[in-house]
């Protein structure tokens, strides 16, 4: 299993997922927003410690489902304090001016058995781009719905890493974002 982890493909930055019916909320301790970027050809993992999600997931009515997320960019967990300080600076996230990233879903589509596609608008550093996140939903032993998905975003689309950091040989443009949202069963 040790081997498996290293072959997880490059991940990225933000993400979202779908939840269950009602305003049941997300089991935040068991959910996560992770990403993998590539620095000089090396996969570097990170995650966000603080984020909020408002998810309504209706398996039988995906059209009425939605997923809105707000990610506290300053809560990023990287390899070192130094990297975390750096990424808050204006050339990267500029968290003073743009403290949160947002994803607002516009449509959730059923794409197969337990598979869905969440379309929405992703806003980072004042730039909004369309994003499509394919997700897979399964039930865990406790009856929670576990929605997992990943998508790649291009950091330069969002002006993340400007100036000397725009060089994609040093930090790849593509960032793979992996999201897992655990939603309690509907009462």
């Amino acid at each position, binding site marked *: 299993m*040790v*081997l498996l*982890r*290293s*072959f997880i493909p490059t991940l990225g930055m933000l993400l979202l997922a779908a939840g269950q019916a009602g305003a049941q909320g997300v089991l935040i301790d068991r959910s996560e927003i992770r990403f993998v970027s590539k*620095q*000089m*050809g*090396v*996969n*570097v*993992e*990170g*995650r966000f410690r603080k984020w909020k999600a408002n998810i309504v997931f209706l398996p039988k009515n995906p059209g009425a489902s939605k997923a809105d997320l707000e990610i506290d960019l300053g809560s990023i*967990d*990287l*390899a*070192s304090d*130094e*990297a975390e300080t*750096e990424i808050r600076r204006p050339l990267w996230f500029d968290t003073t001016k743009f403290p949160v990233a947002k994803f607002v879903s516009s449509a959730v589509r059923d794409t197969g058995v337990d598979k869905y596609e969440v379309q929405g608008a992703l806003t980072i550093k004042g730039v909004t781009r369309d994003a499509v996140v394919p997700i897979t939903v399964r039930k865990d032993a406790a009856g929670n719905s576990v929605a997992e998905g990943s998508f790649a975003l291009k950091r330069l689309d969002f002006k993340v890493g400007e100036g*000397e950091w725009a*060089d994609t040989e*040093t930090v790849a443009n593509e960032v793979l974002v992996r999201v897992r949202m655990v939603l309690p069963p509907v009462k």
Partner: protein
Amino acid sequence: MTRAGPTVEPRYTRTAIVLHWLIAALIVAGFMLGLSMVGLPLSRQKLQWYAWHKWIGITVFLLSCVRLAWRWWHPVPPAPTAMPLWQVRAARVVHGLLYALLLVIPLTGWLFSSASGVQVVYLGLFPLPDLLPKDRALATIFRACHVSLNFTLLALVCMHAAAAVKHHFVDGDPVLTRMLPAAILKPPR
């Protein structure tokens, strides 16, 4: 201890000598690089130096495995018979610790990197498996291990080198010269 005729002093094999000095050079380079790179501001250069440092560490680990295997099949020359027993024992302990650190230090570096969420890609070509999931608390622990073991290694290397010099100049025995390349030892006639 006087010998009747000119006897050939037992020397280390050429392979053992090459491995010894190659590893010595690499650990000096890796150590200096490690000390310098941590203070660099985050930059492409810093990432490059970290990569080189890791490549050196993995190389030391691999060469040390080869060296131990070689040593298994080619026993080292015996200690000079005039050497006091405590010195023989001390040398054995220090050599054992040096070998252990040559293997353990790169591993702690690898663990530190894995726990930091940073993959190790040997020579930029071969991705090594992450030994641990990303965990900042563990990363801090492995960093401390990596740093303190390196300073332990520094102390042991100093003892090792000081002992070699003492053997050569004070005891006048071949403990140092038998590990030197033969070419250096040939006096110009």
